[in-house]
C-alpha cells in the first residue's frame, strides 16, 4: 500500500492506537506489533515477498548471534569465525539481491554480446523484483557489519532484529537505517512525546505535498515530453529535464519525509535522508546532501574499507569509481544507471584529487536571505550538471539518453517551450516548494519544520492550507520512482 492511499490512511491510525494503547507494556511488545504491522504492510504488495524478507531476517539474526558467541570466546580462531559468519551473511544477502535484481540483466547483456539475440529468452528467469529489496538488504547488512565491528552488541531478541529490518515506514524506499542508530531504539520501550507526534504529522504532510503536488504534477509534463521527445524543441526538452530533476527530488525526498514522519509517530527516529541537495555549490556537496543514507552506507561499508582517500592517487580514483558505479548499479539493472554513476564519478574525481571535495561543509548563504552572485552561479552550474545526470538516469537506454541530451542543444533552445494548461501550476508549486526549502535550509530539517516555533493557530492554518492544496492539486496515482529500486 502506498503512503498516499486510502488503505494506509486506515492502516496507520489502527496501528498507532494499538501501539500506544495496547502494546505499550514494553519495548518487546511494541516491536512485536511493529513486526506484525510491517509484514502486513509488505504482504499487501505480494505475500510471496514475505518469504524473502523472512529469510533475510533469519540469516541476519543468526549471523549476529553467531558473531556474538565468537566474540565471547575472545580467541583468534573465534575472531576468524566471526569474520566468516559476517561474510557468509553478506554473501547470502547479496546473492539474493543479485539473483532477483541483476541476474536477468547480466545474462541478457552477456548473451546479447556473445551469443546473439535469439538465445536470450531461454536463459532468463521468470522472477519479479520484490519491492524494497535493495533497501532492506542494505539495512540488514548494516546490522551484521556493525555487530562484527563491535559497534553494537548482537541482539538475542529475534523480534527486535526482525522489526528493525522490516519497519514499514522505511521498508520500501528507505531511508536505509543503520544498526548502531536503530537497534538501541528498538531495545528500549518507546514513550510517546507530543512534540514528536506533532512534528511527525507536519513532516508527513510536507512529504505528501512534495510527492503528490510537486512531483506528480511534474511527472505529467515530463512523461508527455519524454514519450515523444524526438518531436519537441530544445527548450521543451530542457524544461522537461529540469522538471524531472524536480520530480525525482519531490518524489524521493517526499517519501523520505513521510517515512521519517511516520516513524516519529512510533517514537523511532530515522536519520535525515536529504538536506536540500539542489542548493549545493559543487558535486561533492550534492552527494553529501542527496540520499544521505545510501551514500553514507557506501562510504562507511565500501569506500573506507577500500582505503578511502588515505591512499595513493590511483587508488583514490579506483575507489571513487567503485563507489559511484556500485551506487549506479544499486539503482537498477540497466546500463544507464552504470553510466549515470560513471558520469558522477567523473564530476567528483577532480574535486577529490585536488582536495576540494570538502570546501562547502556549511550551508549556502548561511545567516543571509539571498545568496551571492558567485553562489548563485555555483548552484546553477551544479544543478545543470545534476540535471544532465538525471536525463541519463531516466532514459531507457544510453542511446535514448544521448539523443535526448543532444536534442536539447541541437534545435530551438531559445524558443518558447511547449506549455499546456497544467505547466503553469507545476512551475508555481515547484517555485513554492523550493522557496520553502530555501528558507528552511539552515534548520537542517524538513521544509516546514520552522512551523514548530510558531503559535498553535499558525500551525493549524498552515495544516489546513496544505491539506486543501494537496487535495485539490494532487495528481492521480503516480507510483514512487524509487520503488523500482
Amino acid at each position, binding site marked *: 500500500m502506498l503512503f498516499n492511499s*486510502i488503505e494506509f490512511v486506515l492502516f496507520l491510525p489502527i496501528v498507532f492506537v494499538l501501539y*500506544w494503547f495496547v502494546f505499550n507494556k514494553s519495548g518487546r511488545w511494541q516491536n512485536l506489533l511493529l513486526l506484525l504491522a510491517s509484514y502486513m504492510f509488505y504482504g499487501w504488495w505480494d505475500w510471496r515477498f514475505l518469504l524473502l524478507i523472512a529469510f533475510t531476517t533469519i540469516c541476519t539474526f543468526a549471523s549476529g548471534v553467531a558473531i556474538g558467541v565468537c566474540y565471547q570466546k575472545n580467541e583468534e580462531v573465534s575472531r576468524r569465525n566471526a569474520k566468516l559468519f559476517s561474510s557468509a551473511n553478506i554473501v547470502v544477502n547479496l546473492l539474493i539481491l543479485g539473483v532477483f535484481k541483476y541476474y536477468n540483466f547480466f545474462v541478457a547483456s552477456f548473451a546479447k554480446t556473445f551469443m546473439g539475440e535469439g538465445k536470450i529468452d531461454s536463459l532468463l528467469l521468470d522472477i519479479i523484483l520484490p519491492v524494497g529489496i535493495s533497501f532492506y538488504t542494505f539495512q540488514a547488512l548494516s546490522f551484521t557489519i556493525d555487530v562484527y565491528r563491535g559497534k553494537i552488541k548482537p541482539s538475542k531478541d529475534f523480534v527486535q532484529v526482525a522489526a528493525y529490518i522490516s519497519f514499514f515506514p522505511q521498508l520500501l524506499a528507505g531511508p536505509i537505517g543503520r544498526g548502531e542508530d536503530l537497534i538501541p531504539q528498538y531495545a528500549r520501550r518507546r514513550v*510517546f512525546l*507530543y512534540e514528536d*507526534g*506533532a512534528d511527525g*504529522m507536519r513532516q508527513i504532510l510536507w512529504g505528501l505535498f512534495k510527492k503528490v503536488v510537486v512531483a506528480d504534477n511534474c511527472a505529467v509534463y515530463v512523461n*508527455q515530453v519524454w514519450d515523444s521527445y524526438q518531436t519537441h524543441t530544445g527548450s521543451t526538452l530542457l524544461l522537461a529535464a529540469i522538471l524531472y530533476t524536480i520530480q525525482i527530488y519531490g518524489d524521493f525526498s517526499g517519501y523520505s519525509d513521510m517515512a521519517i514522519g511516520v516513524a516519529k509517530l512510533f517514537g523511532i527516529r530515522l536519520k535525515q535522508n536529504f538536506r536540500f541537495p539542489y542548493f549545493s555549490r559543487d558535486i561533492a556537496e550534492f552527494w553529501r546532501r542527496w540520499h544521505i543514507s545510501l551514500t553514507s552506507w557506501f562510504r562507511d561499508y565500501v569506500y573506507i574499507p577500500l582505503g578511502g582517500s588515505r591512499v595513493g592517487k590511483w587508488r583514490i580514483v579506483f575507489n571513487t569509481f567503485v563507489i559511484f558505479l556500485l551506487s549506479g548499479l544499486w539503482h537498477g539493472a540497466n546500463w544507464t544507471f552504470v553510466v549515470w554513476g560513471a558520469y558522477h564519478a567523473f564530476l567528483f574525481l577532480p574535486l577529490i584529487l585536488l582536495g576540494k571535495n570538502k570546501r562547502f561543509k556549511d550551508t549556502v548563504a548561511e545567516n543571509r536571505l539571498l545568496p551571492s552572485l558567485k553562489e548563485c552561479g555555483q548552484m546553477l552550474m551544479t544543478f545543470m550538471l545534476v540535471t544532465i545526470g538525471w536525463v541519463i538516469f531516466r532514459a531507457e537506454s544510453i542511446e535514448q539518453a544521448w539523443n535526448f541530451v543532444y536534442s536539447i542543444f541541437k534545435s530551438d533552445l531559445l524558443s518558447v517551450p511547449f506549455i*499546456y*494548461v*497544467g505547466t503553469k501550476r507545476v512551475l508555481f508549486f515547484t517555485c513554492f516548494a523550493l522557496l520553502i526549502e530555501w528558507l528552511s535550509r539552515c534548520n537542517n530539517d524538513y521544509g516546514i519544520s520552522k512551523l514548530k516555533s510558531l503559535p498553535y493557530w499558525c500551525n*493549524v492554518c498552515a*495544516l*489546513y492550507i496544505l491539506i*486543501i492544496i494537496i*487535495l*485539490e492539486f*494532487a495528481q492521480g496515482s503516480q507510483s514512487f520512482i524509487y520503488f523500482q529500486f
Partner: protein
Amino acid sequence: MKKFVFRALLLLGIPFLLLVILYIVTDPFKTIRDFSLEYFDVTNRDYLSTELFLYNSQCINYDSFILGSSRCCGLNSYHWKKYLPDSSKQFVFQAWSETLTGIFQKLDFLDKNRYNIRNALIVIDIPGTFSSNQLPSETLSIKDWRISGQSEFMFQCTLCYNFMQKPSIWLRSIKGFLNDDKPYVSFDTISNDWNANNRCADLMAVPMQDSLNNCSNISREVFIKAVADYKSNVQEIAPVLITDDFEFMLIEIKNIFVKHKTAYKIIISPAPWQTNKAINPVDYKTLMSIFGNHVFDFSGKNTINEDYNNFTDPGHFGLRAGWTIIEDIYNSN
C-alpha cells in the same frame, strides 16, 4: 498522548463531519435527491443515463440502444433512426470512459429487467474499451449502482469520498445550493443524445470547433500537425487487448443479442490522435469470430481519421463523421 489524540480528532474529525454534512445537504453530484430533469447535473454520465432511462421507460418503450464511451457522442440517434423501423425508440446508454465491463453490465441489466433490445450499436474504442475490467471509482466514471451491482451505500460513499478530495467542488456546491442553480441541460431528455442543440446542425458540423482550443493537452496547431504526420507515418498497431475475461463478456453480449434477436453493429471507433493505433489483427479476428460480419473497423488510417475536420477534439469524432459511419455500416450490406 491524550492531548495529541484529542487534537488530531478535533482538527481532522470535525472538518470530516462537516464535509459529510455538506455533501448530503448540497448533493453536488445530484445522486441523493430523486431524479428530476430540472435538477440535474451531468457530472456522471453513467448515472445520468441510467436515471433518465428508468425515468422515461415508465412511458417510453425503448428498444434501440447506442452503447459506449464518450466516443459515442458523434453518433446521433436521429441519424440512426433512418435505418430503423418507425416504431423503434432509441436511447444513447452512454457513460464516460465506458469499458466493455460497463457495456456488458448495461446489456445484462436490460436483459434481466426484461427490456427489449431490438437494435444495438456498440462503439468500441482502442484501447479504452479494453482498458480495465475493474469498476472505476472516479466521479466522472463510477458506474450507477443498479448497473454495477454495487450497493447504493457504497456508491454514495465513493462519491462522498471523491467530493472530499476536491476542495473546488465544496465551494461550488455551497454556491450552487445557495443560489439554487439549475444546471444547463446539454443532453436530449428523450434519447439522451449528447449536445442536443447540435443535432439539427449535424450535417453542417463546424470543423475544428473552438473546443479544441480549450483542450487541456494540445493546441489546435499541434493537432493539425499530428494528423498530417499520422497520414505520412506507418500505421501503428495496438497490442492485443482482448483477454479471456473480455472474450467471455463479448460472448455473453452475443448471447444476449441472440436471445433478443437484436439487429446489432459493432463499430470500432476512429480516433487519430489519442491512440494513433489501429486495432490489433488478433483482436479483430476475435471480434469477427464472435460477431461475424457485424463488425465495422474505423480504426487506423481511413478517410475519417485523416481529415481533422471530422473531430471536435483530438479524441472524439464529430456528428459529421458519425453520420458517415452510420451511412457506411448500413449501406455496406
